[in-house]
């Protein structure tokens, strides 16, 4: 392959763009493991800050993971049947419903949180429990689950497949379990990963809904930036990366698979 001028320019631009994105990331990660950020890497490397993050924010990490799992369970239980219902009865009513479910996508998280606070803020037990944040997360992530499952379901001839199963003696519940869910699996998987990733990374809404005793990972991150040494905050970012990057990669893989099926 010959390196022509345009080709070299292309490579250079790509390289610069990557560097622009990667250098701050690397710097931040590096800051999290240096002894003293202001003296630079020459001051030595340490895992002390990561230890500090664990001490201070382990609860946040567990809360976030717990919330993500609970949120996933809720969106699965609500979202998959909802997508199935929409796919089985195409028509303008379904269209309107689909748009309605998707509304939280267009509304800023802050507005959503405000609405939740206005409506349920006075219910003390609910307001101060983790389920309050969960409600916000479910509201926010549900459209992703519904759309992802719907995309897969709407390309397979669900009606005829179900009629086939029914003629073989399968009742509605069996058809849902044996035919609908397995065939929607790529969409469910892609949706699930999106939901988990979004729930773990969600900040806007959670910031409004959280209480001092219920800080999620991103809220803790903001808190550490505001009140801790820069090294601790950077170490926090590192921890965040370690949790979120594998999820992002899995999500990419799953959505590729779902797309291949949809073709």
């Amino acid at each position, binding site marked *: 392959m010959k390196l022509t001028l345009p080709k070299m320019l292309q490579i250079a631009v790509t390289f610069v763009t990557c560097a622009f994105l990667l250098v701050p990331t690397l710097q931040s990660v590096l800051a999290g493991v240096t002894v003293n950020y202001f003296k630079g890497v020459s001051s030595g490397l340490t895992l002390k800050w990561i230890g500090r993050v664990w001490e201070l924010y382990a609860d946040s990490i567990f809360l976030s993971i717990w919330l993500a799992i609970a949120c996933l369970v809720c969106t699965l239980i609500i979202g998959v049947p909802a997508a199935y219902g929409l796919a089985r009865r195409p028509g303008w009513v379904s269209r309107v419903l689909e748009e309605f479910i998707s509304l939280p996508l267009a509304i800023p998280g802050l507005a959503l949180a405000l609405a939740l606070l206005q409506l349920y803020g006075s219910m003390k037990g609910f307001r101060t429990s983790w389920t309050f944040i969960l409600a916000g997360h479910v509201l926010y992530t549900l459209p992703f689950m519904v759309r992802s499952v719907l995309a897969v379901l709407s390309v*397979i*001839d669900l009606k*005829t*497949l179900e*009629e*086939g*199963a*029914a*003629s*073989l*003696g*399968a*009742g509605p519940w*069996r058809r849902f379990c*044996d*035919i609908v869910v*397995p*065939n929607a*699996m790529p969409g469910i998987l892609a949706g699930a990963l999106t939901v988990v990733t979004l729930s773990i990374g969600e900040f806007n809404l959670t910031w409004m809904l959280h209480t001092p005793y219920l800080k999620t990972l991103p809220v803790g991150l903001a808190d550490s930036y505001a009140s801790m040494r820069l090294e601790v905050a950077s170490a926090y970012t590192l921890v965040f990366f370690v949790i979120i990057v594998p999820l992002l990669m899995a999500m990419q893989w799953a959505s590729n698979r779902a797309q291949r099926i949809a073709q």
Partner: protein
Amino acid sequence: MTLTLKSVSKTYPDGTVALQPTELHVEPGEIVSLLGPSGCGKTTLLRIIAGLETPNAGSEVRFGDDDVTNMPVEHRKVGMVFQSYALFPNMSVKGNIAYGLKMQKLGRDAIEERVTEVIRLCQLEPYVDRRITALSGGQRQRVALARAFAPRPRILLLDEPLSALDAALRVTLREELAGLLRRFNITALFVTHDQDEAMAIADKVAVMSHGKVVQTGTPEELYRNPKTSFVAGFVGHAMQLEGQVRGSVLEMSGGRLELPRAGDDCDVYVRAEDVALDEAGPLKATVESSTFLGTHYRVGLSGLGARTIFANHAGQKSPALGSQVRVAMHPSALMLLPREDDRS
């Protein structure tokens, strides 16, 4: 099991009358074909029998002594082969075939035994563990048949089982399907719009037109004794001879033709294989076209009426285009059918 339909009709919610009150009776073990042009209501009728569509009030569907009119699909014990096969892509060939047996809550051994039996019957051994997506059209068709047949249904319903295949394969699989259905020894009803297919597979054919069964009979009966011009035209492509019927003679523009009986108020029909090019024939015609079809020539003749009449000519040589020929039709081959004002 006998299948009996009593005044079964269907009007779709949008007002389409897909089926006018229809009677049908199928004897146990009989293979019956529903034959008719596109849109005449064949699929609708089949789906009503399967329980996938609710007929209008007053309709009655009986399986033997069992009135199943209001029974949902999953309890009817019918085997259905869909036009698109509707095989489950999330299961292997074996999984598909075993599904109906699992729904009957049979034991593992019983399922295994029956699946093996059906797979052998349908010659699917090499594909047992394949994914559905890795099968050819013909193989899918056999899997669909095996899946429908495995749970020992009371009746097998097939909706254009061969139409998803290309033309050459369709002819081969037609014979195969006929053989399989006979070996299954089961009551079967199958839908087609192809008269050759109906003739090749069925014991009895029910010809449908505009949401009605217009005639039922063996393929021979329908071919030799059509009751209406629609059946004559649809089964075996009968052509109408134009002219004036006077007593037992048809006066055509090409000459006078002897009829088997007096037929005032009748139209006269004939099939291409009964039109002979014969020196001594009573009719004069001009050769307009000639197509070589291997076993015979299909010769288009003008001058016998406004429309071209075709003759299947089995000679070694085709007559020259534009030449005058004489044509004969044996009276016994002519079909006199009541004139219809509304011909379809």
